[in-house]
């Protein structure tokens, strides 16, 4: 019995050590700020703003500190004099998206597009300008999606972290993570729809179908499985027509008119 307890204690200590020694363990918004202030190779004047934006966004729950550090490190690895302005533009856009005092929105779609572009580089930093442009385009997409859900009551005021909305089928509990998942999933779906080789900009049924599929099984890091009631509510209160102008704008932002 004593041996069993000892073995359990040793196992627990080992597991704790393993967790504590993992790179993501204990990373906080303060660590992100420390990295921005001390290591990130951007203009000194921007550091304070960026730090505030990221700290506020992380505290709000729009972004994990570990994910923010991953992004900042990947960007910093690629910054050079020829792309520094693009890198700064990209990071300040992301910062202003997640800061509750500015946009109060999720930035996961933007971050994953940055990582996608970085992964295709033959030379480190060669797609920084493209990434910065794409981040601006996707931030506009995120900002366009949010008001559609706001009209359905799916939003939180910046100083509120949870609320309940009443529907015919029952009550739906909303928190930052759920609202972020709804907005990001919708933006992911519309972005994917716009990039389809055979897409038609007036295919509203196709847009709705893509959005609902993504809401049922979100395909991005940090997504939360949404309650069935919330998905049913969105399905019942959207037609696809609300997405069409957003997709057309997205296509136009990318220089594709048809």
């Amino acid at each position, binding site marked *: 019995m004593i041996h069993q307890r000892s073995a359990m204690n040793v196992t627990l200590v080992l597991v704790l050590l393993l967790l504590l020694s993992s790179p993501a363990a204990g990373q906080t918004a303060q660590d992100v700020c420390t990295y921005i202030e001390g290591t990130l190779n951007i203009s000194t004047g921007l550091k304070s703003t960026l730090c505030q934006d990221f700290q506020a966004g992380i505290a709000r729950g729009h972004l994990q500190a570990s994910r923010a550090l991953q992004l900042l490190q990947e960007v910093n690895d690629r910054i050079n004099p020829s792309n520094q302005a693009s890198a700064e533009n990209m990071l300040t856009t992301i910062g202003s998206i997640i800061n509750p005092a500015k946009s109060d929105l999720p930035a996961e779609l933007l971050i994953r597009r940055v990582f996608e572009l970085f*992964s*295709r580089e033959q030379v480190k930093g060669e797609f920084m300008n*493209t990434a910065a442009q*794409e981040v601006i385009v996707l931030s506009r997409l995120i900002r366009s999606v949010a008001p559609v859900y706001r009209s359905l009551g799916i939003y939180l005021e910046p100083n509120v972290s949870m609320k309940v909305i009443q529907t015919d089928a029952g009550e739906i509990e909303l928190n930052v993570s759920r609202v972020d998942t709804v907005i990001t999933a919708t933006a992911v779906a519309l972005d994917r729809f716009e*990039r*389809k*080789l055979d897409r038609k900009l007036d295919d509203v049924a196709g847009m709705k179908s893509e959005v609902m599929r993504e809401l049922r099984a979100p*395909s991005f*890091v940090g997504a939360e499985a949404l309650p069935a009631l919330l998905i049913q509510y969105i399905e019942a209160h959207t037609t696809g027509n609300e997405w069409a102008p957003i997709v057309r704008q997205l296509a136009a932002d990318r220089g594709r008119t048809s």
Partner: protein
Amino acid sequence: MREEYSKELHDDEVGKLLREGLSQAVAREEERLSRLEINVMRELERRRSRRRFDWLLGTPGLRPAWALAAAAALFVLGFLVGNWTSNPLSAQGVEFVVFNPEAKEVTLAIDYPVEGYKEWQDIPLKRRNGLWYINLKLPPRTYEYGFKIDGQWWAYDPAADYLVRSVNNTVNAVREVKNVSDQT
């Protein structure tokens, strides 16, 4: 009755019978003894010949031939099982396959962290006879992906559900992994 009979035999007759009986017994023993040498020689030869094949036909647990046979059988079984489980067309999960006999290295990049790899990180494919493949256990959702063939991006995967434009003027393949219950 026996006493009367004994009484009827004369002494010389008894002696004659005893002599005949003894001489027959001696003759039988002589014959048996004369064949003993042949039998011994036959037995020796039989045992010698059996020993010649003992290593092959002896007790299975102790004989090297059986051990060799068991090892060979295990090897063949292991080979068949290994071959079956790593076969790109029979394993479970989601298959990603590229046929390119000339390629030196093929990797998969996918837009979600899977099996210890970060999103869009290069996941090496296994190679067999020009076929590059990997089987990933993917939760149901939509995945964008592509392959790097000797460092060059390629995503015109015939197994893709559809293709989308990628922001750096290439394409990504898209696979929709559905719930097993949805597929039936």
